[in-house]
């Protein structure tokens, strides 16, 4: 047996999303659905029973504790996906099946649909409502199967799924790195980042001080949503608007209304 040992540098992939740049167009939602083989919503799907790995929510200053009486009303859009929490990851600690784990090499919170028994405890635990349950088997209109991404297996009815930072793209980058004699893929781009028309999402490795996320995090206007929970999300946001930052610190007063749905 070969004794070659692969030494990959541990990464902590993450995002910084600029809420001020997001126009709410929903391109990230579509790109995500195409990349990750999300089937069109089944006939009885509602806002809560459809499957979506990233969704766009509307923020209204009327719901923000940072907006006082008589101040102008403002609105903003925000893509919301799995925040890849690092510390006491809520979904990991509640899963009775060990179907969720934080990968040691990429920092990505991995959901294993093969192990999931569908109890949805993780969906309850997730402070960001970033998880979806497959209430029905995925079904594509005739002929549309040809558009499926062969690197992602469709999930069956009865399991939970969530964003995994396009793991298939990370794997492809790993293969390419192997061909080029590198040990490590380094940078790759998830589908939503690629699709964003206004470059509102930057993606990179938090461990690397030169990466776009580390650079963006240097700003005082970069924050984590619901930072007080202490889950240390690896997806962070950026906004110059104080009312948005006040909302992030406290959470919306009312449930945010969704505008785009996968």
């Amino acid at each position, binding site marked *: *047996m070969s004794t070659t040992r692969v030494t990959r540098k541990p990464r902590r992939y993450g995002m910084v999303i600029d809420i001020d740049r997001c126009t709410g167009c929903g391109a990230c939602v579509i790109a995500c659905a195409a990349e990750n083989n999300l089937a069109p919503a089944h006939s009885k799907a509602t806002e809560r029973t459809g499957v979506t790995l990233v969704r766009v929510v509307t923020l209204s200053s009327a719901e923000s504790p940072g907006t006082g009486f008589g101040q102008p009303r403002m609105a903003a859009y925000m893509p919301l996906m799995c925040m890849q929490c690092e510390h006491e990851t809520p979904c990991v600690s509640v899963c009775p099946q060990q179907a969720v784990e934080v990968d040691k090499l990429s920092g990505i919170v991995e959901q294993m649909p093969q192990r999931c028994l569908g109890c949805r405890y993780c969906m309850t635990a997730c402070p960001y409502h970033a998880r979806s349950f497959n209430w029905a088997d995925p079904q594509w209109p005739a002929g549309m199967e040809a558009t499926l991404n062969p690197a992602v297996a469709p999930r069956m009815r009865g399991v939970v799924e969530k964003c995994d930072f396009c793991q298939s793209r990370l794997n492809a980058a790993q293969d390419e790195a192997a061909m080029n004699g590198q040990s490590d893929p380094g940078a790759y781009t998830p589908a939503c980042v690629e699709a964003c028309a206004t470059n509102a999402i930057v993606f990179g490795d938090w461990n690397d001080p030169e990466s776009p996320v580390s650079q963006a995090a240097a700003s005082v206007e970069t924050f984590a949503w619901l930072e007080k929970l202490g889950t240390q999300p690896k997806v962070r946001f950026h906004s110059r608007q104080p009312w948005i930052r006040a909302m992030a610190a406290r959470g919306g007063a009312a449930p945010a209304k969704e505008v785009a749905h996968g």
Partner: protein
Amino acid sequence: MRFTLFFAAGVAGALAAGWLLFPRALYQAETQPLQFNHKMHKDKAGTECSGCHELLPDGQFAGIPKLESCAMCHAEPQGSTQTEKQLVENYVKPQREIPWKVYLRQPANVRFSHAVHTRQGGLKCEQCHGGHGDSERIEPFYRNRISGESRNVWGPRMVRAGLRPGEAMKMGDCESCHAGHNVLAGCLGCHQ
């Protein structure tokens, strides 16, 4: 004493049924479209495994070669064997791809990167595929009647100890090698 004998006979009968009869019921043998002699191709054409089973520049594994690779040498029969005649008549001339059945195709939720294992891990083909490259004939393909997957993924042996390379490609077999070499892959390194 009588009870012990009775019990032993029962265990033996149950094992015989489970290990000998059940696999026959579960798997259905399908013959490959053509016979293929790996050893002869290796010796006469002097090719390495990678000569036909190549890695693409983006790291994807091409798997079983397409017909055009065969046609490069076998546009006309080179010898006098019946198999080669079949190849030329039935596939090369009508330009029809040979519908090979892939012994080690994993289910759709599994990914395996040949690039990472051979280039980064430094594994040789034989370490997982055993003597397949030196075989003179190819075996029938056994399809699981329920799942439709190949039997070679599980392997022909019910006892999991002392498996030879190429006999088993189950998750536990991947895991034991990874654990032995202290290589992390996580869940989604292999599952998709």
